[in-house]
């Protein structure tokens, strides 16, 4: 009876011309040379260095979030291409095809679920990757440019999510995109409802919103536009930027983790590639299990005339939606997102602190880390309020309160500076007052040349706010809740807008100082405007209706 000699068979297969033509190299002996050849001789792996520092590979250092983001991008490509086999982007068919995917197509529901959940996971992973890179100071010289590429990739990740949101053509889809594209209509100069839009000759049928929609309302043209952007145009740009991003990482010696004298580099195969495979496999399993256990939401078919109540953006944009309650669309929808993107890209160029590159160093980078994390925390607190504490008519409902309780109508609002009958005080007074306050808060830390005692400053400030609040409450101008708001927002803005920066940025040169302080003051202005609305029902600090300028 002939026996099966596995070893002999294996040798014959490996030595065959076919195998050798695909996988080059001799017998694998696991020598350093073999390991290096595995990286160099493989088109998919050759963007890696052959050796890397062991510290750079630790999960605790890198969180593996960059690799996991890329794994999710690949998963999204696979599931997305699969969905394209059935999905037709027309108003009459889109929703039906999604229903078919859910109920009539084998694995359709699973693939749609995985596409949805992988997209949400990718947003989380990309943000986590950014936080990790920031906290380890890995954006500093010579990696400034690659950080900027990363910021663009984050923006495009969000844009991919946004364009994909319309495609199921349900109520969630159409209203999120209606609101999103109307924000584009509020762009200064380029939108028909934005400041100076009228002066530029913008109308409903020639502005930036019209281009996005391919019409004056979300309809057939919008669907095909978003489909093409979602499936072809944006993934292409993301792919190009990813190649650039990875290439730069490779050229900048893979990781910012600092060299240690006694450190010996280890082979990337298997030490790093193994971790990447574990990350990708874990991510895939996680998405598979999630997609089996939970279905992607699908509301009723899109109705361009009736909005669900309440209507909410996808969770990662709910923070912006919450800001839109307090700010005019051109600020919350255009200016602030623009400032966030530009500000993030600017960080490596304004941060001159040479310390803390490649390791977690809260004490050495106190100012940078505090300000960055303040921004991240604010973003997620706003998301929490918008997602969990807003009910019908977008009124404030604590999470434990039933939405069947009808809330009292919100109190009327007023504006501080504006034309007669609109603002309490004239515009001519408002412009110098607001400009003066802005300039003062920008320049104060530089003008006061000595370091001030933070505790004394905060104590004095809080005492003053409490005194004002008590007087206001005594005169029955407002209640204790408003007083508490005043103290909370005031103290936050004063600490992070003055007390904290004045110790750290006095030494910066003027251009860097102005950019840094500009970002700080704008962040604090957000808090103060929210306070003004919550405490005094102030709608606009300054309004000039003739040019649609509201602040």
């Amino acid at each position, binding site marked *: 009876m002939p026996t099966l000699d596995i070893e002999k068979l294996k040798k014959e297969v490996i030595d065959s011309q076919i195998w050798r033509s695909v996988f080059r190299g001799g017998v694998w002996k696991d020598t350093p040379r073999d390991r290096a050849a595995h990286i160099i001789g493989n088109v998919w792996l050759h963007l890696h260095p052959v050796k890397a520092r062991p510290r750079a590979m630790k999960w605790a250092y890198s969180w593996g979030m960059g690799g996991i983001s890329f794994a999710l991008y690949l998963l999204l490509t696979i599931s997305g291409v699969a969905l394209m086999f059935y999905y037709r982007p027309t108003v009459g068919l889109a929703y039906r095809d999604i229903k078919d995917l859910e109920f009539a197509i084998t694995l359709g529901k699973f693939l749609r679920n995985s596409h949805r959940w992988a997209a949400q996971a990718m947003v989380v992973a990309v943000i986590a990757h950014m936080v990790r890179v920031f906290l380890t100071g890995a954006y500093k010289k010579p990696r400034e440019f690659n950080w900027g590429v990363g910021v663009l990739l984050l923006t495009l990740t969000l844009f991919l999510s946004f364009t994909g949101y319309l495609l199921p053509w349900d109520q969630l889809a159409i209203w999120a995109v209606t*609101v999103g594209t109307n924000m584009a209509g509020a762009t200064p100069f380029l939108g028909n409802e934005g400041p100076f839009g009228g002066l530029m000759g913008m109308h409903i049928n020639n502005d930036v919103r019209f281009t996005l929609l391919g*019409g004056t309302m979300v309809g057939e043209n919008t669907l095909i536009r978003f489909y093409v952007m979602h499936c072809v145009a944006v993934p292409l740009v993301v792919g190009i930027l990813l190649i650039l991003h990875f290439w730069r990482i490779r050229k900048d010696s893979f990781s910012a983790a600092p060299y240690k004298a006694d450190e010996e580099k280890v082979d990337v195969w298997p030490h790093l590639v193994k971790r990447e495979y574990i990350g990708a496999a874990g991510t895939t399993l996680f998405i598979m299990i999630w997609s089996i256990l939970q279905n992607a939401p699908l509301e009723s078919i899109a109705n361009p005339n009736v*909005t669900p109540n309440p209507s909410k953006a996808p969770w990662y944009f709910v923070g912006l939606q919450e800001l839109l309650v307090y700010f005019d669309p051109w600020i919350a929808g255009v200016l602030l997102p623009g400032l966030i993107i530009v500000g993030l890209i600017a960080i490596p160029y304004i941060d001159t602190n040479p310390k803390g590159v490649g390791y977690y160093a809260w004490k050495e980078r106190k100012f940078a880390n505090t300000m960055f994390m303040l921004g991240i925390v604010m973003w997620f607190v706003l998301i929490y309020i918008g997602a969990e504490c807003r009910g019908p008519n977008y009124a404030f409902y604590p999470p434990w309160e039933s939405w069947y309780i009808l809330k009292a109508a919100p109190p009327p609002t007023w504006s501080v500076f504006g034309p007669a009958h609109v603002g309490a005080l004239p515009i001519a007074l408002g412009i110098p007052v607001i400009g003066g306050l802005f300039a003062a808060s920008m320049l104060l830390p530089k003008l006061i040349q000595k370091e001030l005692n933070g505790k004394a400053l905060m104590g004095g400030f809080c005492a003053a706010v409490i005194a004002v609040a008590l007087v206001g409450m005594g005169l029955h101008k407002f209640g204790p809740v408003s007083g508490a708001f005043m103290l909370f927002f005031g103290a936050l803005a004063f600490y992070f807008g003055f007390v904290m920066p004045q110790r750290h940025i006095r030494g910066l040169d003027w251009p860097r100082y102005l950019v840094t302080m500009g970002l700080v003051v704008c962040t604090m202005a957000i808090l103060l405007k929210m306070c003004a609305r919550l405490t005094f029902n102030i709608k606009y600090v300054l309004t000039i209706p003739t040019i649609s300028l509201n602040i």
Partner: protein
Amino acid sequence: MSEPANNPTPNPNPAPAAAPKPAPAKPAAAMSRGDFLWLGWSALAAFFAASAAAGARFFFPNVIYEPSQKFNAGPAASYDQGVSTKWLNEQRMWIIRTPSGIYAMWARCTHLGCTPNWWGDQNRFKCPCHGSNYTIAGDVIAGPAPRPLWRAKVELSPLGDLIVDKSVLEDMPGKRELEPFFVKYPAA
């Protein structure tokens, strides 16, 4: 590099230089080859960039296939006093009858374009997206909306039907209460 960067032993006895020859006469305005190429490529790049910019016009459709903005809202006599949401689902309009007449208001929040709901008990429209509140006249009383709701042109047909034209809009107090944004139709 074709020449050594520096020559450590310069020839101590250089051959006597030949009498300087007058340089061959060059055309005065000649351009170096490098400059010429720079100019040429720059011009070509500028041409491509300008063409691409002009090509942006491609993304602005010239013809759009959207539903007609004009519709027949039925007999004016069929409306009771107050806010009618009869046409909300089809035409996104409220027909509002007052003791003296009728006006039609576009159910599009001026903040970011959601459709507000009418809350009769509180006598106001409330938007589900960012919480803007409007009076029955369309004026903003709370929330972030920057301007009043739009009213549309309304006419009475010879048969007594209301004809609403959503392409003609007005929101200015003083103008919006007059024709053609208001039809006088006193209660019988």
